[in-house]
């Protein structure tokens, strides 16, 4: 540390393009403004000599600054050199000269062009799809195996995961569903009131919640809450080489880690969906009551227009969505890269893929059930 040494100064140009440097030259005492002024002082010269004789302190950063300045002058075809390097600064000066980068070594690796980038993205997408399909196949194989030997399922994990992923998600799912039911009923009631048919609010809310929204809301809440947790847990395990340990011990991460999660979410999502449907209907009913209809009118109207097939449709979709959320969440975690950002990336990709998958599946189901008149 240079104590009580004045900051960097320069005098020049003197005769023969001589500049006399003095004081303490380091990264803090040579701000950009001073360097710009120093650079401007070289204007019009064909030869520059930097005299370091009066320089009291110079560290590696200061030496690197001088070498970079000399490099700039060299690039402008100005004959540049240093003289009178003090004995005590010579080791630092020589060390900096030895390690200073050449322009070739500083050249950044070329970045891929747009076409290459597009190709890389497409290849990545196809590889992702292949991994997902391959993981689906592996999971289904294990599930089939468990059908014949259910005692091999880790039931302890199954119940713990079902509790953590679904039972603990009950409050948030019910709250969201209740509010959506309320909003849906309120918005539709305002319009229907104009025609005096606000009684049909019950049918609208009932069919929408039971066939569509209850399932969809549950799947989205589970994606954000449980699917992302699966991705991050498994990606952390991958980062800590726990997954590698599983494989080298002859265990299957898909069978022992993913299948219990998939089973838990698949089995418990319909139950959560029923709760979501019910709270959504309560939301709708509250709006009806606030409009002056007796409590039972809502349920009587509902029972006349909503049947078991609507319920079955919603629950069937809940099973598929539960399976999908867990499958994609686990796949993204188990196929995560290594490194500090891998967990975050795996979680984000898991959530995004799940939301896209749910939207696509829901659209397909809508077309399918319409075609089947179900």
């Amino acid at each position: 540390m240079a104590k009580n040494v004045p900051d960097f100064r320069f005098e020049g140009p003197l005769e023969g393009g001589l500049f006399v440097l003095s004081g303490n030259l380091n990264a803090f005492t040579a701000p950009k403004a001073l360097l710009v002024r120093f650079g401007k002082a070289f204007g019009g010269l064909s030869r520059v000599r930097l005299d370091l004789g009066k320089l009291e302190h110079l560290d590696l950063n200061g030496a690197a600054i001088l070498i970079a300045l000399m490099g700039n002058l060299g690039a402008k075809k100005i004959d540049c050199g240093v003289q009178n390097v003090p004995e005590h600064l010579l080791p630092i000066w020589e060390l900096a000269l030895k390690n200073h980068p050449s322009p070739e070594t500083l050249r950044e690796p070329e970045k891929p062009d747009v076409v290459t980038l597009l190709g890389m993205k497409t290849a990545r997408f196809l590889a992702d799809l292949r991994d997902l399909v391959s993981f689906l196949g592996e999971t289904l194989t294990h599930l089939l195996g468990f059908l014949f030997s259910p005692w091999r399922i880790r039931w302890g994990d199954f119940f713990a995961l079902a509790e953590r992923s679904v039972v603990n998600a009950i409050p948030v799912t019910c709250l969201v569903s209740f509010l959506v039911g309320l909003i849906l009923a309120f918005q539709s009631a305002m319009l229907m009131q104009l025609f005096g048919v606000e009684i049909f609010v019950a049918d609208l809310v009932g069919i929408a919640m039971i066939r569509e929204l209850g399932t969809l809301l549950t799947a989205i809440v589970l994606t954000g809450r449980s699917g992302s947790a699966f991705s991050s847990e498994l990606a952390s395990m991958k980062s800590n080489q726990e997954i590698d340990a599983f494989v080298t011990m002859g265990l299957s991460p898909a069978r022992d880690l993913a299948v219990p999660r998939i089973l838990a979410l698949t089995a418990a999502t319909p139950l959560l969906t029923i709760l979501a449907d019910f709270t959504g209907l309560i939301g709708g009913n509250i709006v009806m009551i606030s409009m002056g209809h007796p409590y039972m009118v809502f349920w009587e109207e509902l029972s006349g227009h909503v049947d078991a097939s609507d319920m079955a449709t919603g629950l069937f979709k809940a099973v598929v969505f539960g399976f999908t959320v867990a499958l994609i969440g686990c796949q993204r975690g188990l196929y995560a890269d290594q490194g500090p950002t891998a967990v975050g990336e795996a979680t984000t990709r898991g959530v995004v893929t799940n939301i896209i998958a749910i939207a696509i599946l829901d659209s397909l189901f809508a077309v399918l059930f319409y075609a089947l008149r179900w």
Partner: protein
Amino acid sequence: MTQAPTEKMTPTPDPARPHPLRAENLTVAHGDSPPLLEGMNFVAKEGEILGILGPSGCGKSTLLRHLVGLAEPRAGKVILFGEDIFSEGNRSLARARRKYGVMYQSGALFGDLTLLENVSAPLKEFTRLPPKMIRDIAFLKLSLVGLEKAAFQLPANVSGGMCKRAAIARALALEPGLLFLDEPSAGLDPITAADLDELIMTLAKNLKLTFVVVTHELRSIMKIVDEAVLLGKEVRGIAAEGTPEYLARESPAPEAIAFFQRGKK
């Protein structure tokens, strides 16, 4: 506590040339738990490699956290280049942090930045140099630790030894006079560890840097450390101090005998 007869480990305050590091009656603890290490006095002199030694669990890393200002001592002072780093709270800490660099056990490089960007980061934050000059300086530091060819690599794509070298380069970015190294050889093969030891010695010699190295690697201790402070669990403080040769061969302290004779029949 035993002390090498030939060594002068007592603090010798000299206002003109203060020691890079001086611990005065330092007592450290984890949160509210009882003190782990008490009443420690030691110095690291300019250009010296000071080893903080001791078996696992004796408090080496906790002591390091206090020396680098990540935790406030229960009692006593940490004085860097003549200034108590906790005297004015955050203000004195901020001043002190420009005077030292730290290499953490894992390297702790920023994972989404290349090695060059990692080394450039402190220069961008604390200096007003033009970007090209910052790049040149960062590259010079990487070249100094032999990583000029890996400058554009991400930390995830280089080996553990290279990560540690890059972490040293980053710690050197602002040219501090004092460098703290936490277990530099941990997790490295003997050849890479020996290379890192060579690098530390070269830097200490060429840049007149002071190093404080927390380690329990005997080979590394005997090779690079000038002065050592051996921590003991039983004594809850400094069990012995002196040169590694003294501690290994002459020190009567049971902790020193146990530490340096481990693995020998």
